[in-house]
């Protein structure tokens, strides 16, 4: 396998982008990454997008978007794994280069969620669950994660205050991210007073509905060395992909995100790394409880200790292991297909030392964890500065 | 060989609304309504309950008491209601599918205002008697509506009763000794297609409709079979409110003791096609072997079906194998206010 590097990073603002269509936001992110990378030739475009069909009535993005970029003729592929579609687009690009099929890949993720109303967006997101045996009963995504939260609270004593602490931290980080959807200072009190969405999760425990796109350019480390200039070369040293049962009723242990654990194990093995080696992490905080459970599944904290760790500030910028310096899905926004790519954009930016006020000093090794549905799939990538 | 009930069951939803709650909204004088109608409260179906769901649960209770009748042995199933969930598509097929009685089965939905339940029973037991089927099920169930602010709003309630009929002497818990129906065209109460709520002839619904019809039916069955009121341990009449069944019972010569077990309307309301059938289940819950029971229904339009039954020994062995009726009525109620009631009954205009 060849070594793969990230040489270009780009994203749009995340938010309610009423004036821009899916193809426009996608193209803007792609062009930003291409400008950052200064590569000459793209062999493949990968696109992570959960459901352009349900959100904007459009499929066949491979053709549409390659064309949009003036690159009709280039190989292109849209991949899907619900909210892990972006991570899967990265995995696909990584594998193409590692295997020698492609030299340079434009990895992208996009979702345009605001062209449908709330009920239709909820329905589209709901297709990430088991439509027949979960969705049929009227459950929503907040509802599924609320059930996981309740099981975690029952077993480990996790509290709603600890959930709120995760939201407060992520909003504090989001204030430092110019692309974030929300720039608001959240307090524990106002988080706990926000509208109940699905007991015990409130509005401030839930990531928003967002339009946005993000992109990366990958190439071989060998080529990257010629392009890098004085910037550190960011290598993808580990990639892990895993699934778990789609429906919660079939989960072995409702307090564990097994897909995350398996994906992480595979990524750590490939990279030759352990949780202690990580300097900065982006996790899939579609809901506050998801961040807590993901940090446990990644081995950053023991099972049941993730909530206390967040409350104690261990995951803040400057803490023992900063999590979601970008603001996470909670304040940055969650344009579903783009999230996995945006997470890696943040890690690459951190490893390049270009994260400004969000910078984790001396970050050399980072991890991004992307997840689909209620933990039915997960993709983990480990990046490090190549020496 | 005699035809009888081999299994019976009732289902009453848990929610209730008190008369005062309804009266408050319309500025009506609750105490006088309560006295006049002899009603205190009524059952309210949840948004997830309808004629079909209640029929399924009532039927399941009936099977629990049937000594192991296999649903595939049922040759006919009828559901009588004036609130079938579909205008076109039978309730009976859904019920039969849910209890596992399809596909070797005859199914039809019945309709005749409040007597659709006893009609189902009438036809079901007749098929068994004719030797056409081994077992047949007759169900009466309703979630009827009363127009907001109308007198019927105080009484229109929800409930179901199901009876499995067979000719197994070993399984019969009550034999059907006689049946009789008295029917004329009497336009006391009606609902035109596409209208939400029924209309009625006010005081015309009393003497010329309810009383004339039920008395003729009850007198008719007694005369034809050489029976007098004193021969019966229990009598159940259709109960559109608390007052009418008591008055007709007394006029015919029945006592309070004979009438009170099957008299549920003051706390249940009028469950329309379920009314006298549910009353019958309450009687079967406590009747003694050898008791003679009269049940006389009434359906506007108008008609009345009467049955004379004799309770057997077996009733004592099986009555506790499923939820009894009176506890369903008297225990674990969930009281709702008028706003919740209106929401549950679809009286609030929702967004399209």
């Amino acid at each position, binding site marked *: 396998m060849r070594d793969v590097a990230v040489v270009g990073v780009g994203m749009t603002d995340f938010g309610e982008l009423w004036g821009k269509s899916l193809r426009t936001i996608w193209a803007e992110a792609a062009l930003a990454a291409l400008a950052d990378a200064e590569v000459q030739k793209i062999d493949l475009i990968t696109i992570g997008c959960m459901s352009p069909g349900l959100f904007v009535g459009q499929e066949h993005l491979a053709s549409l978007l390659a064309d949009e970029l003036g690159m009709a003729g280039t190989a292109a592929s849209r991949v899907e794994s619900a909210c892990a579609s972006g991570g899967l687009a990265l995995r696909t690009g990584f594998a193409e280069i590692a295997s020698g099929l492609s030299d340079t890949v434009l990895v992208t993720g996009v979702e345009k969620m605001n062209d449908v109303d709330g*009920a*239709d967006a*909820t*329905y589209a997101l*709901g297709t990430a669950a088991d439509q*027949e*045996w*979960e*969705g*049929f*009963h*009227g*459950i*929503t995504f*907040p*509802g599924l994660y*609320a*059930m*996981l939260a*309740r*099981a975690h609270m*029952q077993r480990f004593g996790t509290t709603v205050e600890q959930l709120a602490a995760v939201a407060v931290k992520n909003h504090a980080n989001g204030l430092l991210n110019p692309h974030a959807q929300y720039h608001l200072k959240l307090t524990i009190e106002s988080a706990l007073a926000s*509208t*109940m*969405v*699905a*007991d*015990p*999760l409130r509005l401030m425990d839930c990531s928003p509905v967002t339009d946005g796109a993000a992109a990366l350019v990958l190439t071989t480390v060998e080529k990257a060395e010629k392009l890098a200039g004085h910037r550190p070369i960011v290598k993808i040293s580990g990639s892990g992909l895993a699934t778990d049962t789609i*429906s*919660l*009723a*079939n989960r072995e242990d*409702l307090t564990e995100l097994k897909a995350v654990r398996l994906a992480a194990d595979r990524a750590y093995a490939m990279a030759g790394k352990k949780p202690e080696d990580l300097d900065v992490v982006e996790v899939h905080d579609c809901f506050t409880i998801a961040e807590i459970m993901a940090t446990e599944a990644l081995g950053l904290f023991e099972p049941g200790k993730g909530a206390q760790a967040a409350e104690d500030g261990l995951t803040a910028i400057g803490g023992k292991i900063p999590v979601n310096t970008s603001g996470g899905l909670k304040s940055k926004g969650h344009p579903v297909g783009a999230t996995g790519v945006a997470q890696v954009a943040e890690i690459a930016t951190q490893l390049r030392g270009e994260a400004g006020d969000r910078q984790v000093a001396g970050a050399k090794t980072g991890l991004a964890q992307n997840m689909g549905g209620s933990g039915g799939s997960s993709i983990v990538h480990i990046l490090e500065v190549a020496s | 060989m005699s035809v009888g009930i081999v299994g019976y069951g009732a289902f009453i939803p*848990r*929610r209730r609304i008190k008369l005062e709650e309804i009266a408050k909204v319309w500025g009506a004088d609750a105490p006088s309504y309560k006295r006049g109608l002899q009603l205190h409260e009524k059952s309210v179906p*949840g*948004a*997830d*309950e*309808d004629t*079909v*769901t209640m029929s*399924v*649960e009532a039927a*399941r209770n009936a099977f629990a008491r049937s000594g192991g009748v296999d649903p595939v042995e049922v040759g006919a199933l009828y559901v009588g209601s004036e609130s079938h*969930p*579909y205008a076109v598509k039978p309730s009976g097929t*859904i019920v039969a*599918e*849910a209890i*596992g009685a399809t596909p070797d089965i005859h199914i039809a939905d019945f309709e005749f205002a409040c007597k659709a339940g006893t009609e189902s029973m009438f036809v079901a037991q007749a098929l068994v008697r004719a030797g056409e089927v081994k077992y047949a099920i007759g169900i009466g169930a309703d979630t009827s509506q009363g127009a907001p602010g109308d007198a019927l709003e105080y009484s229109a309630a929800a409930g179901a009763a199901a009876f499995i009929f067979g000719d197994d002497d070993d399984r019969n818990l009550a034999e059907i000794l006689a049946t009789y129906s008295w029917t004329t065209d009497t336009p006391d109460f009606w609902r035109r297609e596409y209208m939400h709520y029924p209309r009625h002839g006010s005081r015309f619904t009393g003497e010329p409709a309810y009383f004339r019809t039920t008395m003729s039916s009850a007198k008719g069955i007694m005369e034809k079979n050489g029976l007098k009121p004193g021969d019966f341990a229990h009598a159940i009449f259709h109960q559109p409110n608390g007052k009418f069944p008591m008055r007709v019972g007394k006029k015919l010569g029945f006592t309070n003791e004979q009438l009170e077990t099957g008299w549920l309307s003051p706390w249940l309301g009028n469950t329309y096609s379920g009314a006298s059938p549910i009353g019958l289940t309450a009687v079967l819950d406590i009747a003694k072997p050898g008791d003679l029971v009269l049940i006389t229904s009434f359906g506007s339009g108008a008609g009345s079906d009467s049955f004379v039954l004799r309770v057997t020994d077996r009733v004592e062995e099986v009555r506790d194998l499923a939820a009894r009726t009176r506890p369903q009525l008297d*225990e*674990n109620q*969930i009281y709702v206010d008028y706003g919740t009631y209106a*929401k549950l009954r*679809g009286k609030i205009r*929702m*967004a399209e």
Partner: protein
Amino acid sequence: MISPGRSWREFPQRYRLEAEKCTVCGKIHYPPRVTCSKCGARTFESLVLPREGKVVTFTVVRVPPAGFTEQTPLPVAIVEVMDGVRLMVQIGDVADPDEIEIGMPVRLEFRRISSDGEAGLIFYGHKAVPRLDA
């Protein structure tokens, strides 16, 4: 968004709680599937799930999906009916959602789950209701 054909196909599971048991390792699947999720075998015998169980975890959905507005607030739970057999169901007949607890004994009752608007089909299934005599 459930077609007549799809709703009809699901009746054995929705209406009668029909499940399947692997003849090789004994794992029970509800709903049934093509291969055993535990041992991969493809031979099964049918069974009907019991209608009594307990709540494993739950939530109360306050922001409903389309089609469930009238049923809000909507309690939904994972209920375990026999060792290891779990299913997702709504919880019905609860006066106050605060009374729902993990471990609460429930009974499965036939109920209306949703409908395709005022003019479309009605979808029936089972809901869990509190088992008050347990």
